[in-house]
């Protein structure tokens, strides 16, 4: 099951954020999307998660245009894709309720009502998948804690567990380790690798080039809304075909560097 975008354009209020971007997420592969801030990484992930239609181009599931599908069919596809946001976006509820949210919305209404009634009259045990997802991120002891009382790093791990608990075919992760210390970063990277080994297709938007190198099967370098180059990490790091990729990976191409990036600069040209 391959999730892909083909020649998509997307913008906000007249300005174009993504231009003719094509990218495919194959099962059992990790694709990292790298590039300076404000370059369209989050917009690309939101297109893949069908938050919005592209202005042009197609978002497809196994080659079928998702936006040409009926609502029910599109919902079925959406439920095979989960996303973790840059901000953890947790509900004001205990951790286990956050992690089980995706499982609960997938239940038929009768089952949901029955379960809600059961929870009202007696206590309920979190589902095994919820506990197992929390074990993966090392937070099983926080199962009953309110999610809003967690630290930034813990919240990010709960958000990851929530995305993992629904056993998705594709995971979209927007800066999933930005709030994490090295230990927990390694924990999440291991979880990503285990998901990949189970056949999950993973897209990770990241600023961390070391992480991209560690976990990628393929890297995609996005700059100024354009997909400049894709390929295995070794190729991008060692033999990039585009000068902008080389400059970015050398740490020279930064935010607001759009125009200068196209023209080689002499050392004295910069103030």
């Amino acid at each position: 099951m391959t999730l892909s975008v083909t020649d998509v354009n997307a913008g906000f209020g007249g300005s174009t954020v993504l231009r003719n971007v094509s990218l495919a997420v194959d099962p059992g592969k990790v694709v990292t999307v790298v590039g300076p801030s404000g370059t369209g990484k989050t917009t690309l992930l939101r297109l893949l998660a069908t938050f919005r239609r592209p202005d042009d181009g197609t978002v497809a599931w196994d080659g079928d245009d998702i936006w040409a599908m009926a609502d029910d069919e599109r919902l079925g596809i959406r439920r095979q894709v989960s996303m973790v946001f840059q901000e953890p976006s947790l509900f004001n509820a205990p951790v286990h309720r956050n992690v089980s949210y995706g499982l609960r919305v997938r239940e038929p209404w009768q089952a949901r009502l029955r379960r809600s009634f059961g929870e009202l009259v007696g206590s309920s045990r979190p589902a095994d998948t919820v506990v197992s997802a929390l074990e993966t991120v090392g937070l099983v002891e926080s199962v009953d804690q309110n999610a809003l009382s967690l630290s930034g790093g813990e919240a990010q791990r709960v958000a990851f567990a929530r995305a993992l608990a629904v056993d998705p075919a594709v995971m979209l992760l927007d800066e999933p380790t930005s709030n994490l210390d090295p230990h927990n970063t390694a924990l999440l990277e291991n979880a990503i690798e285990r998901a990949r080994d189970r056949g999950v297709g993973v897209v990770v938007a990241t600023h961390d080039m070391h992480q991209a190198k560690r976990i990628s099967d393929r890297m995609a370098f996005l700059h100024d809304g354009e997909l400049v180059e894709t390929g295995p990490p070794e190729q991008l790091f060692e033999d990039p075909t585009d000068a902008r990729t080389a400059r970015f990976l050398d740490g020279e191409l930064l935010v607001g560097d759009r125009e200068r990036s196209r023209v080689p600069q002499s050392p004295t040209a910069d103030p």
Partner: protein
Amino acid sequence: MIPLQAQLPDGGWTYVVSIVAVSLYVSLTAVGLSTLFSLPVALGIGFTDFRGKRLVTAVVNTGMGFPSVVVGLVVLILLSNSGPLGSLDLAFTPRAMILSQFILATPVLLSVSLSAVEGVDQSVRDAAYAMGGTRVDVGLAVIKEARFGIVTAILAGFGRAISEVGSILIVGGNIVYSDGQSYTRTLTTAITVEARQGRYEVGLVLGVILLALVLAVNGLGSWLRNQGRGERSV
């Protein structure tokens, strides 16, 4: 001094009990219906950007100050025999009172719940959608996040309804049966009658009951908010 029991109209304490029952029936039904109407509308207005949204919000906020006698007059005209809804035969019935209290409570409920819904971060909607929620699931997630504000909205709507006198006096007619049982007489309209007839003690008793009811409902709301704070939402 004349004992209170002797001052009570025909029916004695059953008169008082029936008045309380009618008051609660009319106001709770009106607020219940208004909640069912206001929450989806608040979600609709809160979730969508459309031309004239600020105007709609301003109209809703203005509606909180609707003079109740004007609402009563308009409802009575609509429901009177010669009015467009005259065939429903609702004038001077508890249902007419429910309708007028619904009209009065809705702007309050809508306005407070709208600001509660708009106060919920966009990230909650995003998370509910990204985890496979339907439009209804996303709406429910927002309602649950905004639950404290929504409880406040319902309490404010109930406060507006139960303490209102002008419109229900006009559309309900303040009717009691000959055995002293209330048909359309509520605590507020009964107080006006008792005051006019000089039975101040009875009026004061009814006033204390009204205050106690409002206090009890607010107490329940505060308890719910405290119970719910930090407990499960979604």
